[in-house]
């Protein structure tokens, strides 16, 4: 064990700081203890890294799931009755039922509970917490992204699909080259918003010991016996990140609107 925070502080702090009025000095000392002593700032940085990694890959998983689920849902709702191939019809009927159950369960239960079920139940053998967290938050996010994409697809004029099909393109080809690119362009701002929401939602990752930003703050708080300041620091970091991405989304929206004319 090295020297404790107060010992170290007294040996490195410049004399004038030690002579400040007591309240002010204590505040500076607390900052030192919560962010600098023992390289504690690294914990926040690593935590933030984990939060962003988790958010980014969860959204990727969410988008992949969302595309699949929304296509199944839209295909069945719009074209199920006229599907002529009995195998395709059967496949879509089953897939649609599974998707509906998935959407209901995921949107009907708290994400923390889903996270713990996946961690301690399904992924109990894995020790890669970020991977397991990505799967849990990805599955969760997929349900919301699916509904987002579905609304994006529904907003595309039916004539687009008909034009594709009349040229001889198949249903899947028409989706891929004609419908989805337009749908994605329409929902891009909402998708970026989902990223911002997810940054904040992953704050519960600490429940399963995943060292995200919030968890890092609580570890520092426990070690330094000070909760208030580390959590203020964590809040400030979230706020800065969220404001930054909100600004980016606004820029993106203006760009998209300009390209529409």
């Amino acid at each position, binding site marked *: 064990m090295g020297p404790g925070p107060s010992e170290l502080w007294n040996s490195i702090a410049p004399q004038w700081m030690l002579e400040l009025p007591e309240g002010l000095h204590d505040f500076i000392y607390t900052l030192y203890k919560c962010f600098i002593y023992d390289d504690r700032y690294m914990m926040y940085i690593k935590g933030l890294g984990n939060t962003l990694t988790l958010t980014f890959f969860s959204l990727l998983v969410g988008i992949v799931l969302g595309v699949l689920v929304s296509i199944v849902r839209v295909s069945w709702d719009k074209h199920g009755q*006229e599907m*002529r*191939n009995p195998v395709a019809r059967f496949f879509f009927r089953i897939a649609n039922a599974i998707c509906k159950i998935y959407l209901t369960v995921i949107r009907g239960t708290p994400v923390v509970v889903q996270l713990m079920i996946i961690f301690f139940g399904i992924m109990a053998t894995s020790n890669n917490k970020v991977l397991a967290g990505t799967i849990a938050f990805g599955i969760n996010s997929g349900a919301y992204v699916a509904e987002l994409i579905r609304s994006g697809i529904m907003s595309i*004029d039916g*004539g*687009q699909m*008909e*034009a*594709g*099909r*009349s*040229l*001889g*393109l*198949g249903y899947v*080809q028409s989706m891929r*080259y*004609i419908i989805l*690119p*337009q749908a994605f*362009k329409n929902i891009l701002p909402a998708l970026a918003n989902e990223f911002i929401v997810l940054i904040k939602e992953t704050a519960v990752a600490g429940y399963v010991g995943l060292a995200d930003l919030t968890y890092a703050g609580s570890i520092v708080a426990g070690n330094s016996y000070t909760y208030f300041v580390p959590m203020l620091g964590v809040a400030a970091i979230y706020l800065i990140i969220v404001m930054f991405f909100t600004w980016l989304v606004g820029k993106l929206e203006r760009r998209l609107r300009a390209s*529409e*004319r």
Partner: protein
Amino acid sequence: MNDNVLISVNNVKKYYNNGKIKALDGVSADIKKGEVVVVIGPSGSGKSTFLRCLNLLEVPTDGHILFEGVDITDPKTNINLHRRKMGMVFQQFNLFPHMTILKNMTLAPMKLLKKPKEEAEAQALQLLKRVGLEDRANAYPSQLSGGQKQRIAIVRALCMNPDVMLFDEPTSALDPEMVGEVLDVMKQLADEGMTMVVVTHEMGFAKEVGSRVIFMDGGKIIEENTPEELFGNPQSERLKGFLAKVL
């Protein structure tokens, strides 16, 4: 069956809402190679449904449609292969707004006919030249006028080298001053021998270009004849009444 028949429609019915709406109520017709068949009739008479059944955008409730001798209403038929040979032009153009004109025209030939990009683009440019729009190749649909959009929609369909072109009121969404430029392209196409089925309210076009005119009402074909006979000597009261309103 006569080899000259390109599309044979046999007693086709299309019902909606469990048979409450009979959009097509037993329609039979033959479309022969090189013919320009014009379909007229009041709104809601089933013209669009008839046309859209020809390439199975609407699946008939009953009846059969043979295209080049193949029963495309048979569920086992791969309709995508046959649609390549049937171009369609819509009232609302339906260009792909996220693609340039050139991409609009080369998408299907490249994906379906596996044409190399250069070849597909060369063909597209050639067709654009024919309709006087080669300078708009890299424009987006939103940058074009309605008449230009519809001319692009026509040549986009032509890029697949179809054996028949289907038109559903191609000039109805256009400002009057743009109708002529689209009809001119269609006339040119007819002169080159393209088989065409055209739903339109342009009676001038029907008289001048049509080889045959079909008059529909209530989901049925009421009369069909050469333009001279149909317009000059209408038989049924319904056609007489319709012509009195539109001419």
